C-alpha cells in the first residue's frame, strides 16, 4: 500500500497543496453520534446532554435508507461514530463483524436490566454478550378510523380480532363511497411490510424463518401462503387505493390521516403526529390479529451501541446509561409520546388516560423480531426477496410462484 500512498501524496502535491484539513487539538471530550432519520427524541436527548455535561455530542442524521451503507463504509474507513443508534435488526450483523463494543458488564449492573424491552435486548446480544441496549422502541399494531367504523355500522369498541372480521370490516367501510377504502398498505416498501405484515403470520403461530433462524419456512409453513392470500383478497377486491401498490413508504403514515382509510398497520411513532397535527382524526388502536385470533407485533425501533475504535468508550456509556434513566425516560420520552424502553415505565403520568398509547405500549409485550445477520438483505432491501414475494403474490395473485421464489432467494441469501 505504501507505494500507492506515496503516489497519491505526490499527485496531490503536484495538483493541489494544502487541501488536507488539520486535526483539531482539544482537551474537551467530543463525541460523534449517528442516528437514522426517524422521529425518535434523539435530538432532544443530545441537546439536553450537551447542555448539562462537559462532554459534547455531535449528532448526525443519516437518511434511513442509507444508514447501513454509510455505517459500513465508515467502519471500513476506520472512522465510525462513537455512538450509533442502530435499527435493531442490524445489530446482529454489526456485532458479528466485531464492530461494536461489548457492554455486558455495564448492562449487568443496571438495576432495571431485566425490565428493558425483551425483543431489543435479544437483538442486542451476540453469542451471549450484550452489545446494545434499547433506545427508541416501537411495536406494530392496527389503527382504525372510529368515524368510518360508526358510519359503516361497525362497533368501534369491538374492533376485529380475526382476518375474516377484518375483511368484513373493510368491505363495509369500502362500500361507504368511491373515495373511501377499507385498508392501506405500502406495497413498494419492504420495511413497512416486515413491520406490519409479518405479525399476521406470527399471530397465527406461523413464521417465515425456523425457530432457530437457520432456514426459511416459506413453502413449508402453510400460514405464509394463507396470509398472502388474505392480503391478495384485499387487493383483488380493491379494498385499498390503487396507489398503495406503488407506495414506497411515502404515504405509509400520511395515507391514514386523509380520513378515508378504514384501517392501516402502524407504529407508535405515528401517534403523536396523528394527535398533534390531525386533532380531528378520531382513531383507535388494536393488536394485529392471527387468522383465528391471537395477537402479535413487530418489535422495531433502534438500539444504541458504542462502535469499536471509539476513543471515548466510558463517556459514551455514561451518555447511554443516562438515556435510560427515569429523568430521560419520563421527561423526554413519555412527555413526547414515545414509549419508554423500560416496561415498568408504561404507567406514567403522561400516558394516563390515553388507552391508545397504552395499547401501543403493550404491543411490545407480544413483540417479536427476527434474529438474523442478513435481515437487511432478506426483509428490508427494496430489491430483496421479501418485497418481491409480496408483490408477486398480492398484486399479481401468483401465490405459488411467489412462495417458491421467496423460499429459493431466502435460502440463497441465508446460506451466504
Amino acid at each position, binding site marked *: *500500500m505504501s507505494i*500507492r500512498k506515496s503516489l497519491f501524496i505526490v499527485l496531490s502535491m503536484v*495538483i493541489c497543496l494544502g*487541501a488536507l484539513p488539520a486535526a483539531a487539538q482539544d482537551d474537551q471530550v467530543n463525541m460523534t453520534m449517528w442516528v437514522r432519520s426517524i422521529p425518535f427524541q434523539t435530538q432532544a436527548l443530545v441537546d439536553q446532554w450537551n447542555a448539562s455535561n462537559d462532554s459534547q455530542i455531535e449528532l448526525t442524521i443519516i437518511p434511513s435508507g442509507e444508514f447501513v451503507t454509510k455505517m459500513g*463504509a465508515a467502519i471500513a*474507513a476506520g*472512522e465510525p461514530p462513537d455512538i450509533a443508534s442502530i435499527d435493531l435488526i442490524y445489530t446482529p450483523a454489526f456485532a458479528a463483524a466485531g464492530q461494536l463494543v461489548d457492554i455486558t458488564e455495564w448492562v449487568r449492573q443496571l438495576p432495571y436490566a431485566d425490565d428493558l424491552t425483551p425483543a431489543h435486548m435479544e437483538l442486542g446480544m451476540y453469542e451471549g454478550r450484550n452489545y446494545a441496549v434499547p433506545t427508541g422502541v416501537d411495536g406494530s399494531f392496527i389503527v382504525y378510523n372510529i368515524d368510518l367504523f360508526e358510519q359503516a355500522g361497525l362497533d368501534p369498541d369491538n374492533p376485529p380480532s380475526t382476518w375474516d372480521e377484518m375483511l368484513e370490516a373493510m368491505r363495509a367501510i369500502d362500500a361507504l363511497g368511491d373515495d373511501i377504502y377499507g385498508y392501506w398498505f405500502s406495497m413498494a416498501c419492504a420495511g413497512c411490510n416486515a413491520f406490519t405484515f409479518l405479525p399476521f403470520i406470527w399471530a397465527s403461530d406461523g413464521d417465515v424463518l425456523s425457530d432457530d433462524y437457520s432456514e426459511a419456512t416459506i413453502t413449508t409453513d402453510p400460514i405464509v401462503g394463507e396470509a398472502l392470500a388474505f392480503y391478495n383478497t384485499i387487493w383483488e377486491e380493491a379494498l385499498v387505493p390503487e396507489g398503495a401498490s406503488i407506495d*414506497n413508504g*411515502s404515504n*405509509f403514515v400520511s395515507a391514514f390521516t386523509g380520513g378515508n382509510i378504514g384501517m392501516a398497520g402502524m407504529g407508535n411513532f405515528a401517534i403523536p403526529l396523528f394527535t398533534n397535527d390531525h386533532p380531528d382524526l378520531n382513531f383507535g388502536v388494536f393488536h394485529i390479529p392471527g387468522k383465528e385470533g391471537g395477537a402479535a407485533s413487530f418489535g422495531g425501533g433502534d438500539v444504541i451501541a458504542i462502535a469499536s475504535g471509539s476513543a471515548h468508550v466510558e463517556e459514551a456509556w455514561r451518555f447511554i446509561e443516562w438515556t435510560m434513566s427515569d429523568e430521560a425516560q419520563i421527561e423526554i420520552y413519555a412527555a413526547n409520546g414515545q414509549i419508554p424502553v423500560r416496561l415498568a415505565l408504561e404507567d406514567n403520568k403522561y400516558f394516563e388516560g390515553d388507552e391508545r398509547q397504552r395499547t401501543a405500549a403493550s404491543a411490545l409485550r407480544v413483540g417479536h423480531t427476527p434474529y438474523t445477520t442478513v435481515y437487511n438483505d432478506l426483509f428490508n432491501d427494496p430489491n430483496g426477496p421479501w418485497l418481491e414475494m409480496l408483490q408477486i403474490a398480492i398484486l399479481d395473485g401468483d401465490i405459488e410462484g411467489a412462495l417458491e421464489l421467496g423460499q429459493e432467494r431466502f435460502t440463497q441469501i441465508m446460506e451466504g
Partner: protein
Amino acid sequence: MTAPAVDVQAERSQQEIRRLRRRALLWLRYFILVVLALLFLFPIAWSFINSIKLPSEAMAAPPTYLPNEISLRNYEELTTYGKIGIAQHVYNSTVVALITVAGSIILSTLGGYGFARFEFPGKNVLFIMVLSTLMIPFQSILIPLFVMIVQVDLHDTLFGLALVYITFQLPFGIFLMRNSFLAVPQEIEESALLDGCSSLSILYRLMLRLALPGIVTVAIYAFINSWNEFLAALIFMSDQDKFTLPVFLTTIRYGIWGDVNWGALQAGVIVSIIPSLGIFLALQRYYMDGLMGGAVKN
C-alpha cells in the same frame, strides 16, 4: 410571338408555385420546430413554475397549472433543509467542479501538447492507454476505486472525489487538446524554438493562446460532468456535510418517514440546473465545437 410569351408566363407561374411551396415547407418546418421546442422545454418550465408556488400549493393533488400566488418559500426552505441547508451542498458541488476543471485543464494541456508535438518511445502505447479509459467506464472499476480512496483517507473528501472525476475527464481532454495543438501550424512553433524559447515557455506564451478554444471546451465538459455526476458521489461521500447537490436532492426525495417536500425538491432541481445551463448557454459555441470536432476527427 405569342408562344414564347406563354412559355415565359408558365415558367413564371411555375417559379411562383415552387417559391410558394418552399415557403410553405419552411413554415411547416418552423411549426414542427416550435411544437417540439415547447415539448422539450416543458419539464424544465414546469419544474420552475412549481418551485415558485407556495409550498402547500406545490404539494397539492391534483396539481394546479399556474401558481395562485408566487412565492420564494420553497427556496427559503431549502436554505435550512436537513439542518445543513442547500448552501453547503452548492459549495461542495462547486469545489469539486472547480478542482476537476483545474486538474483537467492542466493535465490535458500538458498531455495533449506532449502527444501532439513530441516523439518519444512508447508514445503510441501511452496514448492508447489513456484513450482506453473511454472504453472502460468508471462504473466498472468503482469498487477498487472506493477501496483505494478509503485506504489513503481521501473518502468523504471533496478532493478525493475530484481526483476520480479528473481521471475520467482525461481521455476526452487529451484527445481534444492534442487535436487543438495539431491544428497549430508547426512553423510558428519552430520559429519560436529557433529563437531560443524553451518548450514550456512556447507552450505557455504561444500555444496556449492558439489552443484557448480547446481549453475552454475541456473546462466546460469537466464542469458539467462533475457537477452532474451521481453514482460516485453517492458512494464516496458518507458524511451528509459533504453530499454534492444531486445526492442531496435524492435525500429530499426519500424524506423522513416518507413525506416528500415536492416544492423544495423542484426548487433544488432549479438551483442545480442553473449553473450548468448558464455556462452552457454562455459558452455553447465551444461546447458544440468540442463535440463536433471530436466527432469529425475521431
